[in-house]
């Protein structure tokens, strides 16, 4: 855990907009402490799209909610670490200040665009209310601005759509509305939690293009939480791979996908169905995601499923080790004396 901090402050011409330092978010449940996020560090630079991948329960969403300070509490609590946004520690910020940041400087788009919209309020009003929260504009000009923003996110006939209820819109349109709400105040960071999971493939591509377009036109940094490596390959500049609440690998998308270094990332990439290879059985990763309540403290959480595991993997936690430029993996294979270890 001590070496994790190496990632931060490394090679940063643009400087970090957001940096997580050794973030630990635990869930205190009746069945024990779930270490949902257990010492995660990474940074997001300005104008960057950062992917955060991992399977269900790996801590992706909890990381996003921690940044927004939207954790369900109880049971969740940030127990350690810092979240620096423009140099300010979000974990220590008073509630009314974090509220001013939410929606104006950091926004979040959730997975299911139908349930993220209030079914009783017309679309235009929902967007204009977000504008009102931060600008204090009267409702009429706010609605005008809302329609403008709906147009910007590619909603045709925005004026008509604004007077409709969410259930009258398609999934893709709803997600565009959510994105409109999220970017209405031109945030510096947009956290998108599986924004395309419930959408058709073509609509997925449109929504992702929209995100990229927002980054390009407004300079918004995006933290894209997903389990889909295809999306990562398509849109992310860098990617962080989470496994059981810890960072397995982080680096530029190209480097991580072409040269996956952590055995987990390697296994993950092998289990992506491909159309260009010959037919065969789809590879899976043996074993299952460990139960987060029963994890040993000092081990590599992946060792029970890892083909390379040695005894050291059961007794020590690996640090992040540099693989290439900006590319790190937390695996003992890359330590100097791996060959000699048992």
């Amino acid at each position, binding site marked *: 855990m001590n070496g994790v901090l190496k990632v931060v402050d490394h090679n940063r011409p643009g400087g970090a907009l957001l940096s997580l330092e050794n973030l630990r978010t635990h869930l205190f449940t009746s069945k024990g402490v779930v270490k949902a996020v257990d010492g995660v560090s990474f940074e997001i630079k300005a104008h960057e799209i950062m992917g955060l991948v991992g399977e269900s329960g790996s801590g992706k969403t909890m990381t996003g909610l921690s940044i*927004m300070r*939207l954790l369900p509490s109880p049971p969740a609590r940030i127990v350690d670490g810092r979240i620096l946004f423009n140099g300010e520690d979000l974990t220590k910020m008073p509630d009314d200040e974090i*509220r*001013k*940041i*939410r*929606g*104006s400087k950091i*926004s*979040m788009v*959730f997975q*299911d*665009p*139908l*349930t*993220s*919209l*209030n*079914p*009783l*309020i017309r679309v235009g009003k929902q967007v204009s*209310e*977000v504008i009102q*929260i*931060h600008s204090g504009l009267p409702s009429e000009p706010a609605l005008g601005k809302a329609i403008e923003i709906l147009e910007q996110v590619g909603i045709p006939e925005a004026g008509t759509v604004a*007077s*409709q*209820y969410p*259930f*009258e*819109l*398609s*999934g893709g*349109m709803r997600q565009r509305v*959510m994105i409109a*709400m*999220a970017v209405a105040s031109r945030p510096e960071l947009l956290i998108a939690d599986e924004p395309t999971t*419930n*959408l*058709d493939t073509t609509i997925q591509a449109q929504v992702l293009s929209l995100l990229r377009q927002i980054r390009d036109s407004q300079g918004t940094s995006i933290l894209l939480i997903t389990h889909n490596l295809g999306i990562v390959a398509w849109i992310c500049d860098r990617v962080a791979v989470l496994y059981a609440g810890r960072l397995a690998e982080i680096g530029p998308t190209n480097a991580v996908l072409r040269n996956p270094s952590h055995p987990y990332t390697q296994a993950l990439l092998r289990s992506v169905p491909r159309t260009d290879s010959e037919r065969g059985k789809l590879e899976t990763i043996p074993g299952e995601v460990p139960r987060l309540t029963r994890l040993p403290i000092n081990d590599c959480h992946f060792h029970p499923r890892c083909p390379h595991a040695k005894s050291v993997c059961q007794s020590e936690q690996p640090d992040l080790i540099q693989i290439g430029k900006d590319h790190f993996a937390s695996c003992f294979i890359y330590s100097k004396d791996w060959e000699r270890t048992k």
Partner: protein
Amino acid sequence: MFSREPKLVEDSESARPLRYEVLAILSRDRIALVALLVVIAATVVALLAPYIAPFDPTQQQLAGSLKGPSSIHLLGQDELGRDLLSRLMYGARVSLLVGASVVGVSLLIGVFLGALAGYYGGKVDSAIMRIVDVFLSFPGIILAVGAVAVVGPGLENVIIALILINWPGYTRVMRGETLRVKENVYVLASRGMGASDSWIMRKHIIPSAISPVVVLATIGFGWAVLAEAGLSFLGLGVQPPAPSWGGMVSEGLEYVLIAPLMALFPGLTIAITVWAFNMLGDGLRDALDPSLRI
């Protein structure tokens, strides 16, 4: 799972606000429609009683004591020769005033406290709900009788007593609904957009959680009318000579063998009014049920 295609809704339909939809569904429910008409009629009569009542409700005409219906006194006269129809019309004012104020105030208290308890949970919730439990542990009408007996009879005291036993029910329903509504992703999303607690409650929680409470209020209205009649019957409500339905039943009871209509008419009026509010509540519940909408 929610990525299904949008429902094809005709344009005229789609532009309609929710309240019109509720009205449209309500108007297809015949019983609720009749009930609504009864409620409207009772309200109109109560409001216009001084203009449409044929006689002064307290004007005595001893010559006509206990006379049955005639062309001048459509529903007959009571033991003091007062016009029963006029008394029923004026009595409607008392009943509806009690119903409206009891339900209105209980609703306000219930929505406010219930939303607070459900939204914040924890200690706020425990504190509010324990008080609610204390009130709910008494049999309602006995608590009201006791309260009125202590502070003395009269319209205001009846209203206060009925509010006292009514607000806990609204609070409990509102709290339950709030617990359900606050789990919606749109509440989380709204907080993520920087909304404050009071904003979320005003814009999201209360509008989404209030339907069952409104239904309860409609039924509660009938209940309050009945409770007022009961208290007036026991002599704890409106004091004579002012007319009230419960008091009229009570007076009529003394002469039930000689002039049964004197108790029957106010009794029927109470029954029809309470039935109407209950049916309206039923109809509203169906109309507000999202699973039945479109």
